[in-house]
């Protein structure tokens, strides 16, 4: 089934393929980033599920390169959920993954480009 074509044609959803493992007549796996109107996205996901496609949400995660990070803490000021904080004693950057909503504001803020997402 031409999934990405249908997503674009029927739902106006852009599917950016990040990873694909597809072989003929076998179950394949596609990692896609979907861009579109929020209601259309919900409809598209519902449609995929109705076609017996298992849809699960991959969690984008922040990755901090500790070799590059200088622990300046500039990112802590733009982090809305306090996932990024400075340890009050050591002033080393600490990242609480469970609080991160992957808003990515820290990424362009970092002066030494130490923060990225794992996709």
């Amino acid at each position: 089934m031409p999934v990405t074509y249908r997503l674009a044609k029927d739902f106006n959803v852009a599917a950016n393929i990040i990873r694909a493992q597809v072989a003929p007549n076998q179950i394949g796996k596609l990692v896609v980033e979907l861009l579109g109107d929020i209601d259309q996205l919900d409809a598209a996901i519902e449609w995929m599920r109705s076609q017996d496609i298992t849809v699960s949400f991959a969690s984008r995660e922040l990755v901090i390169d500790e070799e590059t990070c200088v622990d300046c803490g500039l990112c802590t000021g733009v982090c809305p959920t306090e996932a990024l904080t400075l340890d009050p004693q050591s002033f080393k950057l600490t990242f609480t993954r469970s609080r991160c909503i992957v808003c990515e504001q820290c990424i362009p803020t970092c002066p030494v480009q130490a923060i990225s997402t794992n996709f």
Partner: protein
Amino acid sequence: MRSIAEINDKIERRQAVVRTVEEVKAQVAEVGIAQTAKEVDVVTTGTFEPMESSGAILNLGQTDPPIKIRQCWIDGVPAYAGFGAVDLYLGASQAVEYSGTTDLNDIEEVREGAEARVRQRGGGHVIEELIAGRSVPLRAVGQVTDCYPRASFETTISQNTINQFYLFNPRNLYQNFIVGVNGGDRALFTYLGPLQPRLGNAVYSNPGAISPLLNDPDLELVGIGTRVFLGGAIGYVAWEGTQHFPLQKRLPNRTPIGPAATLALVGNAKYMNPKWVRGCYLRGYGPSLMLGVGIPLPVLTEAVIAHCSVQDQDLVAPVVDFSIPRRVRPTFGLVSYAQLKSGKLIIDGKSVRVAPLASIYLSRQVATELKHWIEQGAFMLTEPVASIPNDRTFIPQDMRGS
């Protein structure tokens, strides 16, 4: 109490008592100033923060036939060539020049694109690469003269293939700075990093009580010729820094309430360590250089320890609103470094997140590293050759007749 010669004698015999300034503050709290001054010979301070008025002098050595370089790009970053034939100056905040039609002011449009990543490079990054021992491409255009017939030159350089490579930084080590906030309604991209609208965040850039010049507020110990830790190597105070403003208002403890003294520093980059010399980029503002600098303070008198005992709650900085793009911006008053380091400020009744731009973690490491050097006898103290002026006024650049 003791002289620099006596301290150096102890350093040579590896008997000098060296403490980081934070250790001294803790010791003073415990045993008092007099006792601490008796015990400690040298206090080490440190900072690690962006210092964009930094740059590297390079001498390439002559080509054959020789060239008088007038324009030069090192890894795409323009270097100033208006000196003798193959002398160059690479400024830390010089952005990479790339072939494209995009105007430098259209940063918004290219920010998220591939070009943005290229633009994020600057002189600071090239300096870091060279210090790390890597090779970088160099392109030069010459003025053809009877002395220097060559018109252009392209090569690859590393720190080992050039004669001189030293940092000569016209303004380092700000004695105190400001706290940036944004009272406007659109995000601002500043030299203090992004400032979110409606007082969304605040940024400070001085590490406070550990910072070198806040512990010698009147520059009684630091002067021209003082040997310092610069980028992981030995450096020297060359001169007063640009915008040196010792007449800034001061608290009774003599520390300034805003930007004050600055120093020009010089040091051999070939001996520096990329851990302490880091190219950086401030979004929407431009490239810069983060630099580790440490100053040893000899305990010549009890007053030295008294000055070193200032704590974050004894030091203040002004909260400045960047939404008014003028030389004199409105302020929200003074806050203490203890408040800043708590991570929250109350401004206009509103709780504001505060982040540092200086790395307090690495500032401490600079002070600790310098302490080890002195303990191991690898770093001797110097008598200043001359004092840094204490009466410079701050002259604004106003159009004549206005």
